[in-house]
């Protein structure tokens, strides 16, 4: 029974929690939901991997992206609308114009729909990159060569733009 966490796990949690939430947040645009995903990701890791394995950060990053994308695809239309209304775009947050807020919210909703439609690896790559991970960290998380990240990322960005148009 888990009376306490090992120092190794607590250290891992403190080091990686914010980043795991950040990755999930890029996908979900909802902090509460992103933190729920982060909790699930850490529970999955905790029950199945020792905390001090060298692949821990990469595993958590990949799991955050995939779990958030799964959560995104699981949203129904109603919940997506609620999320959009609750979380306006950064630009919209500084305006009081209700029309702009609604327009920005719809854009954000559309962005999430595009992410949900993209191939899994492309969507995960965008989430990881725009959450601030380096090419080396993305390569480790997605188990691809670091030299391939640039090319694959450009393809993912192109696909994202096409889907958004």
């Amino acid at each position, binding site marked *: 029974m888990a009376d306490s*966490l090992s120092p190794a796990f607590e250290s891992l949690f403190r080091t990686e929690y914010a980043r795991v939430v950040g990755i999930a947040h890029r996908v979900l645009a909802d902090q509460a939901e*992103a933190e729920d995903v982060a*909790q699930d990701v850490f529970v999955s890791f905790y029950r199945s991997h020792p905390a001090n*394995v060298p*692949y821990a950060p990469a595993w958590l990053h990949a*799991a955050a992206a995939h779990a958030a994308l*799964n959560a995104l695809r699981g949203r129904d239309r109603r919940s997506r609308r609620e999320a959009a209304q609750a979380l306006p775009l950064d630009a919209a947050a500084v305006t009081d114009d209700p029309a702009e807020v609604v327009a920005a919210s719809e854009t954000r909703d559309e962005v999430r729909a595009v992410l949900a439609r993209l191939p899994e690896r492309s969507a995960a790559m965008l989430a990881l990159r725009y959450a601030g991970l380096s090419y080396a960290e993305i390569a*480790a998380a997605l188990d691809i060569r670091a030299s391939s990240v640039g090319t694959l990322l450009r393809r993912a960005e192109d696909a994202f733009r096409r889907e958004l148009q």
Partner: protein
Amino acid sequence: MNDTDIARALGTTDPSVNTDDALVRFRARVQSDGIAEVPPVARRRISSRWLQGLAAAAGVVIVASALTLSGVAGSILQIFEPKSVVGVPVSQSDLNYLSQACSGLNLEECMGAYGTFVWTTPPQPKEFQTRGQASADAGFAVQTPTSLPSSVTGNPRYGVINRSSATFTFSADSTRQAAARQNRTAPPLPADIDGSKLFITGGPAAVQIWGAPAGATGATGAYPDVPTLIVGQAKAPTISSDGVTVEELRSYLLSQPGISPQLAAAIRAIGDPSSTLPVPVPAELAISHPVTVQGVQGLYIGDNTGIASAVIWQKDGMMFEVIGSFTESQALSIANSMR
């Protein structure tokens, strides 16, 4: 739309999180749900650590088979040789119980809860540069996939584990002492089992690994040595007994207080326990179902997050497994391309 626009679309600001609060929430959740932590691994300087881990994993599978499978009365007889594999769902409570009983996954400690486990020929992994060298050392033709997904690149590394053997002697004293250390009372070991021996052999086994960096020790470094693809092939393990019977072993295992009704039912449902290798599948973390691979029935196991897949099958006296970050169809395609 340029990169800045994409960044803006995906959100440019990181959420402000309170890690202390999150840690409190996490701690409460694992405690209330009874989720046990996998103990941190001991840091030791081991060359080819991946091979050492593999040997330990192989040993766990072999001994797990011994615990869940059966024997026949009489002199030393072969009582187990897998002809097929089946998934056995293991719940979190089962894992918690096993974790407590076994002090983690250390093989000797785990088996020490029930008796004395001694390697008579310990597994000694070796690394090779070519498939030919691996085949020569293993004593069988090492099969390799002829078709790989684009995510799998480069040449594999080869490892071979020699044919290994171990003897396990059941001990009522060890069982009592292990239970006492956990402040619980185990069902008494039947007199027929106390002192009886299992003779376990496994391998040789050959492993091919794509994607793990050469020389990775697992001891340092910011990035993982997680392989892209692992292909394993081994002579099927066998277990012999000097007297313990099928029903005695199975009944004793099922009488353990921590075994869930679901796991007990799954073990009881194994039709021919002398030739069926049960593969534990964590119920909350993974799914499994039978698949046809290489013309025989095998087992597909998929991680719920979609990150990992495994296909395991037995054919012509050999066990095979394909493990990696693939979809089910990709994993099956790799498995079916093995030649």
